[in-house]
């Protein structure tokens, strides 16, 4: 019930906003904020319901939606979904707050779309029926398309259309694979499909498994985005309004990595393992390439966007290491990236609101003009680099160790990304916050105001909390990961066992 409320409250807020009269901008903002905060409060209530160290879904609702083909409204929550849901319910109110003054044009639609986006994102993380999952997956696409396209910067339309088409091209292949699985197993219910595959009631041959894996993988890899499918990301991030960039980077990219972990590994364990070396190489290339490209960006938002390519590479590396540490690190890194990159986009947005430029060369000496803003930016940068005691360190460390268990060279190359991240972040910081203060910066850049403090405090607090006391988060994640990894290897044993009778027959 609590999960249903968390899921549907934003949808109700969306509908409510649509029926508010035009022109009442203040009422719209407050309604949006109250709905988002109420959703956050509800979602916090979910934490207690997920026991540490125990896998399996809680808060399950399983109702028939369409009797035939059997599509169910089946939602549930485990340790991985929990934190990702919380990430989206946390960042939505923050996105509303950062847009408070920035969005002055078609205010009603803006907040309505933000709430619809929250609904879609939450839905993706809790859906336990493949059809339902696909519905939420696509539904989250539409509001983001409008957020980028209507309220973005100059090249917003190009970016919005590119974003939509890239995602759509990937997801239609996933749809084909989902339908194929349905035709084979007779159900969309994720648990039932897994049961059928494990018990050997439905056996996919090697080609089938590989084709289906690649179809799912295409959709997820575009969303992550995995090198070389990342080209939509810098455009979308740069052109989106701050709130759009935050939601896109922090939550939406996690749809891809979540999908890889949740669906690709357990459904197609053999194909996943066979492709893993290739995928890992792409991930590592992404880590280094993203970092190198970020280093030379003249535009702050684009720089942060490319760091996402790099950071998400770590997540994919962790997932495809097939180790407990790697998977835990991957999930932790999803959350970390959500918090710290989200915070970076928030802060860049603050700078843009003041100076109306995203070009690094237009800045300098912001530290003297706005010391608190600079301090927060520094903490966030350090977190993003992976400084111990801050959140990213934990995730990156776990991923690197997990990868090292499989192949030490993977870790070596991936670690280059960590070093490079220090280069680009510190260099960015130096150019923007130190040095001469140009007149325009001095005149326009004020320090944080209370509304902005309200946005950054929870984010910074989380960076420290997640960096120092992982016990709050990791045990719940580990349990869920253990189950996923188990299923990814268990079905391999089953297939070996299935092969046994044939040998016996031969022997006879």
């Amino acid at each position, binding site marked *: 019930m609590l999960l249903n409320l968390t899921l549907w409250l934003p949808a109700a807020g969306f509908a409510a906003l649509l029926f508010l009269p035009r022109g009442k901008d203040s009422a719209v903002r407050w309604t949006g904020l109250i709905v988002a905060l109420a959703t956050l409060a509800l979602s916090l209530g979910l934490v207690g319901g997920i026991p540490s160290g125990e896998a399996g879904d809680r808060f399950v609702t399983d109702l028939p939606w369409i009797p035939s083909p059997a599509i169910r409204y089946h939602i549930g929550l485990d340790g991985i979904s929990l934190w990702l849901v919380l990430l989206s319910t946390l960042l939505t109110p923050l996105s509303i707050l950062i847009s408070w003054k920035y969005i002055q044009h078609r205010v009603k639609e803006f907040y309505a779309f933000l709430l619809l986006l929250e609904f879609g994102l939450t839905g993706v993380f809790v859906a336990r029926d493949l059809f339902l999952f696909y519905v939420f997956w696509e539904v989250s696409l539409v509001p983001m398309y409008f957020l980028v396209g209507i309220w973005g910067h100059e090249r917003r339309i190009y970016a919005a259309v590119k974003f939509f088409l890239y995602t759509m091209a990937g997801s239609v292949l996933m*749809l*084909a694979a989902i339908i*194929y699985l349905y035709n084979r197993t007779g159900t969309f219910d994720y648990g039932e499909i897994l049961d059928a595959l494990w018990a050997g009631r439905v056996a996919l041959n090697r080609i089938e498994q590989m084709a289906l894996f690649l179809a799912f993988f295409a959709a997820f890899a575009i969303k992550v985005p995995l090198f070389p499918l990342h080209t939509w990301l810098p455009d979308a991030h740069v052109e989106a309004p701050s709130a759009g960039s935050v939601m896109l980077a922090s939550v939406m990219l996690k749809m891809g990595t979540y999908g890889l972990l949740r669906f690709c590994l357990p459904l197609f364990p053999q194909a996943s393992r066979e492709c893993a070396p290739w995928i890992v190489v792409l991930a590592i290339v992404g880590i280094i390439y993203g970092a190198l490209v970020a280093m030379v960006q003249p535009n702050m938002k684009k720089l942060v966007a490319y760091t996402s390519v790099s950071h998400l590479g770590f997540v994919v590396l962790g997932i495809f290491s097939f180790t407990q540490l790697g998977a835990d690190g991957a999930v932790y890194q999803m959350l970390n990236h959500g918090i710290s990159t989200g915070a970076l986009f928030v802060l860049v947005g603050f700078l843009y609101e003041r100076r109306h430029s995203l070009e690094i060369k237009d800045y300098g000496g912001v530290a003297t003009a706005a010391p608190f803003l600079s301090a927060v930016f520094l903490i966030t940068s350090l977190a993003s680099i992976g400084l111990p005691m801050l959140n990213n360190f934990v995730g990156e460390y776990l991923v690197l160790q997990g990868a090292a268990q499989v192949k030490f060279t993977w870790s070596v190359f991936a670690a280059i990304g960590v070093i490079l991240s220090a280069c680009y972040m510190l260099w960015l910081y130096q150019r923007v916050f130190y040095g001469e203060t140009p007149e325009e910066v001095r005149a326009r850049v004020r320090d944080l105001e209370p509304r902005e403090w309200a946005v950054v405090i929870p984010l910074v607090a989380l960076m420290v909390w997640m960096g120092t006391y992982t016990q709050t988060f990791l045990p719940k994640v580990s349990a869920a990961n253990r189950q996923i990894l188990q299923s990814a290897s268990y079905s391999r044993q089953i297939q070996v066992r299935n092969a046994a009778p044939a040998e016996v027959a031969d022997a006879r």
Partner: protein
Amino acid sequence: MPASLFPPAVEILRVLPEIILTLSGTLIMVLEPLTGERPKTFLGFTALAALVAAMFASALAFAQPGEAFSGMVVVDGFATFFRLVVLGAGVLTVLSSYQFLTREGANTGEYYALVLFSVAGQSVMVSAHELIMIFIGLEISSIATYVLAGFLRDDQRANESAVKYFLLGSFATAFVLYGIAWVYGATGSTELTAIRAAFAAPQAGVPVAALASVAAALMFVGFGFKVSGAPFQIWAPDVYQGAPSPVSAFLSAGPKAAAFAVFLRVFTTGFAPIGHRWEPLVWISALLSMTIGNFAALTQTNLKRMLAYSSIAHAGYVLVAVTARSDVGTAAAMFYLAAYVLMNIGAFAVVTHFSRRGERYQNIEDLAGLGATQPLTAALFAIFLLSLIGVPLTAGFFGKFYIFKAALGSDLVVLTVLGLLNSAVGAYYYLRVLVVMYMREPGEAAAGVPPLAGGLRATLVLASAGTLALGIFPTAVLDFARYAARMAR
């Protein structure tokens, strides 16, 4: 015997919808000169009432399903489903026409009568179980639509459209007729079940398979034209662009649905035994339709022309379902056509509303800023466009999903993948309309849009409600389609 001179009441009941439509059409023709200069609003309402009454009559007839007139007409689930679809298309067309006709100074009773006759023809087509009846229905429907396409006599484009539609259309009908002749020659019958029996168990010495293949090919040409499937789609863009917008809406909905109904009935009943022979033909046609339609639509600047190409692409999706040659495929085609009628008439109704007198504004660019100047119209249009793209929670998505489910069920993996990639291509041109509507500053055209009122408002609200309802709760319609699909075997 006197009893055989007059058919029993139940047989009359089984063709009651057609009787209502024809009589009402004639009544409107008679009333038209009598009203003289007075406003003709009530003629529109008469047509509307006739269509709604015919819907009830279809339901009533379905309460006692069975054959009528020695097997020429059959009232079964399949017929009833499509009767309701074409009648629904008629209702939406009449609703969306009233303002258009007043605006263009052409609000005469003939228009409504022609719509009723055309729908009557389609209703005959979908309930016919015999090739000659199918042909008669096709002709009744077509001749009325030829006139409708050129209804604005002073409009050059409309005239061009009508002439093209007439010439090519009659050519295509001739193919159907020739195909019927071959079937009759091969089997000695025009009744579909008898034809199937003859094809399934050929007599010795008669090259039935060859004859049947020729017949199937000929009829495929005719039906392919009527459903605007490639490679017989050339006429569609010109005709849709030139015809009055409400008529274009009607052409892309009613006649198309009826033609698909006949296509399904003839090919899955009569030609079922040679299914493996015509399947590759339809396979190619499906792929060509989707690809040509989608790629040609990418570059269009005229909204009506773009919707015309998109309708070719959508015909391709339905042909995918036909290629599946299964009950699921038939049901999927039926569901998709119902969905398509709603979303496409809705989209064309927006064009009707927006284009204004003389249809001045029908370029995509003209829509700039409609989202700001008329949010409701834009939002409803957005629903239709998202449904045409195939975004979940709309009828278009569920329809497409079900089509490709059927296709995969029949192991058409390649066609499915190509079809789905096609639908991603298609997303581009629909998105472009959304872009213009929502992401551009209002231009001169969008600033002066009249308020959305009356029949057009009703059309848009009904069609969008239907689009969402079929997308979120498809069960009722889907179950009926699945039940009805078995009748087409």
